[in-house]
């Protein structure tokens, strides 16, 4: 009997030890059920870990430059939190970005030990729609332009972006000049965009091209195409329903297809974005590029003779899409909500937000947007901020169910197929609509 008991105990211990090993966390979750003052406040993405600080310093040293704006912002944020809230025990975590961050955040939510703050870009509206985020206090929501907020289904702002950009048209003045165009007069309408791009491609004769609207088969394509749909007052999705059979959507797709002829074949719809950006900024063989504010750095580093302008419009109606946003929100299940909101307040302080301006990235703070003296000498910021002030922009459309899969169909089977084939656009849209409707059921 004793032996049997011993065997059962041994097996139990073994199972427990294996389970304990599988549990993994080194205190990252931090929420051990203790009081909020004693447990660590776990913050992913914002702030830097020691390794990240070392890496940033090493890069700056190697390049003989100061720390980049990104590193400066995150390090100063940590210093400010330490100074203003010395009793906070914050665990700054590096959990990556995009899918990697989403996966880890969802894992903590599933495990019932959510972080005290969640971050992200494209998937944050899904978190908001699911109702897992705490509404932002009014003082935080009122600090920024509405474009920098994400709302839940009840209309409460639940996430705020710490920085963002909109899409602009960057152009190579030398290539415009080579094609006989005035380098100081970029296109302002779709017709001008096409005419100028066609003219550059023709003048390039296989050596350089005008460029068009990228249709990468992933989010990079949808983000850049969305502003053009919005200019016609339409979008891929309206009120949570797929909208591909809208004639204006199909008209825009036709324009994207026409413009794609001004890319070397396979460049504008490549699975990797790098070849296109290399062609624009390094090889300087593409005249027009649709990109966010970060493109300025690439142009400067490659000594390009460049300019920037708002996106060409169909009939003067603006439309754009937020990109490069760092949204943060506080999960309802967080055990340190007030502390997390205080950290967000620090992250939105004007002195910290001004750091973004040094890399031509827009801050959403009303106090900065309303003070053109802070950025009037910077054409990229002026263009972006004017766009931000003149309308309420958001990220790409959000679907109530299977959002990521719906976008996968749009990116691959609508956008990329439009530019890779000559299949009738209505047929492409109709087939994709059928597939997407099944996903939305």
């Amino acid at each position, binding site marked *: 009997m004793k032996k049997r008991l011993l065997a059962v105990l041994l*097996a139990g211990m*073994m199972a427990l030890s294996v389970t304990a090993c599988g549990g993994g966390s080194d205190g990252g979750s931090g929420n051990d059920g203790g009081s909020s003052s004693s447990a660590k406040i776990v913050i992913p993405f914002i702030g830097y870990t020691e390794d990240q600080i070392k890496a940033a310093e090493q890069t700056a040293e190697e390049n003989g430059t100061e720390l980049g704006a990104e590193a400066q912002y995150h390090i100063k944020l940590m210093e400010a939190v330490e100074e203003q809230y010395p009793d906070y025990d914050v665990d700054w975590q590096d959990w990556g970005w995009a899918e990697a961050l989403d996966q880890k955040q969802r894992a903590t939510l599933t495990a019932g030990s959510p972080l005290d703050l969640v971050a992200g870009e494209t998937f944050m509206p899904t978190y908001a729609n699911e109702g*897992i985020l705490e509404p932002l206090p009014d003082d935080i929501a009122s600090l920024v332009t509405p474009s920098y907020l994400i709302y839940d289904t009840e209309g409460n702002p639940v996430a705020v972006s710490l920085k963002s950009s909109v899409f602009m048209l960057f152009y190579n003045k030398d290539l415009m000049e080579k094609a006989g165009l005035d380098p100081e007069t970029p296109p302002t309408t779709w017709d001008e965009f096409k005419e100028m791009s066609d003219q550059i491609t023709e003048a390039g004769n296989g050596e350089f091209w005008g460029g068009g609207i990228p249709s990468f*088969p992933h989010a990079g394509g949808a983000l850049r195409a969305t502003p053009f749909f919005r200019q016609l007052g339409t979008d891929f999705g309206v009120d949570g329903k797929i909208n591909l059979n809208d004639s204006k959507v199909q008209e825009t797709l036709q324009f994207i297809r026409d413009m794609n002829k001004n890319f070397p074949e396979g460049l504008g*719809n490549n699975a*990797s974005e790098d070849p296109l950006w290399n062609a624009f900024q390094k090889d300087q063989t593409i005249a027009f590029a649709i990109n966010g504010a970060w493109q300025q750095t690439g142009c400067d580093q490659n000594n390009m003779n460049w300019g920037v302008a708002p996106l060409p419009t169909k009939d003067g109606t603006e439309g754009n899409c937020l990109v490069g946003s760092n949204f943060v929100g506080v999960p309802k299940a967080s055990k340190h909500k007030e502390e997390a909101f205080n950290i967000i307040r620090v992250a939105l302080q004007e002195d910290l937000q001004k750091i973004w301006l040094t890399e031509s990235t827009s801050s959403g703070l009303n106090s900065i947007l309303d003070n053109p003296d802070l950025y009037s000498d910077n054409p990229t910021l002026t263009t972006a901020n004017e766009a931000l002030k003149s309308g309420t922009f958001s990220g790409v459309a959000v679907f109530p169910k299977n959002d990521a899969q719906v976008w996968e169909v749009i990116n691959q089977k609508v956008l*990329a197929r439009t530019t*890779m084939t000559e299949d009738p656009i209505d047929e492409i849209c109709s087939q994709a609509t059928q597939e997407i409707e099944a996903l939305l059921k």
Partner: protein
Amino acid sequence: MTKTAKAPKIMTKSKREARRAYCIILPFFIYIALWGLIPLVYGLYLGLTEYNGLASSPKFVGFKNYVDFFTTGDYLTLLWRQFWIGGICLLFNTVVSFIVGLALNVNSKARGFFRTSVYVPSIAAVSITSAIFVALLEVNGGINGFLKQIGQPTITWNYSQFWMVFWVVVYFLWRSLGPAAIIWLGGLQSIDPTLYEAADVDGASFAQKVRYITIPGLKFVASYIILTGIVGAMQMFDIIMFITKGNPYGKTDVLMYRIYRDGVVNFNMGMAGAESTILGIVTIIFAIIYFKVVLRKED
């Protein structure tokens, strides 16, 4: 009535040995239960639910995911593509690795070098080698550069389903050939050489020796390679993910890659559970068919 004392149980030697053996394998059973059995059962359960990893618990939806799988058509297309692209990979790998195995069995001073060389690609990390492969397939990549140099027109590989499948097969072969060839080689070397000597005495041709000695002698090796190959082909997704990402416009997407995306990228965990169950069942069916039809027939 007086209570009689219970007689102590006397365990036979064989029982004691059996108990000892169970104790030895117990940790492995626990390991398999924790990391294999529980996830398997949970996956089956998830297939009957709707869950995006954000709600507090999965919502039971019965067989809805299975109905969607068989009625929308898209999933069946992916399953069919998994079968034929995986099948082509398996076919070429089996045949070419057999030929390479035969070549490696030839007596030569350099055979050690060749045996090592053929195995090296399977040791290198898929993520790195596939990145090099993808760079070669870029519009201005190495292969198009070579075509230009020999005066041939360049090809936009990622526009064509044919070419993307072609390169998937090439990469699969390059990577998987070595291990299979080494197994074939082991099989070849296990065949009694006196059989070939006897065949020589009887005047058998090379083809006859292959037909009547080599192939029957490799039956069990072949069954191992093909059975593991079927499982591998039906689970192939890393090569698709790294090389084509399902492009052009979803034409090289396969069910296993979709399961990966549905599960841990798009968080449609219920559908991923249902897809995994169906793919698992289909793989078992293929394996049973092969086992019953091919192997039993040969018996």
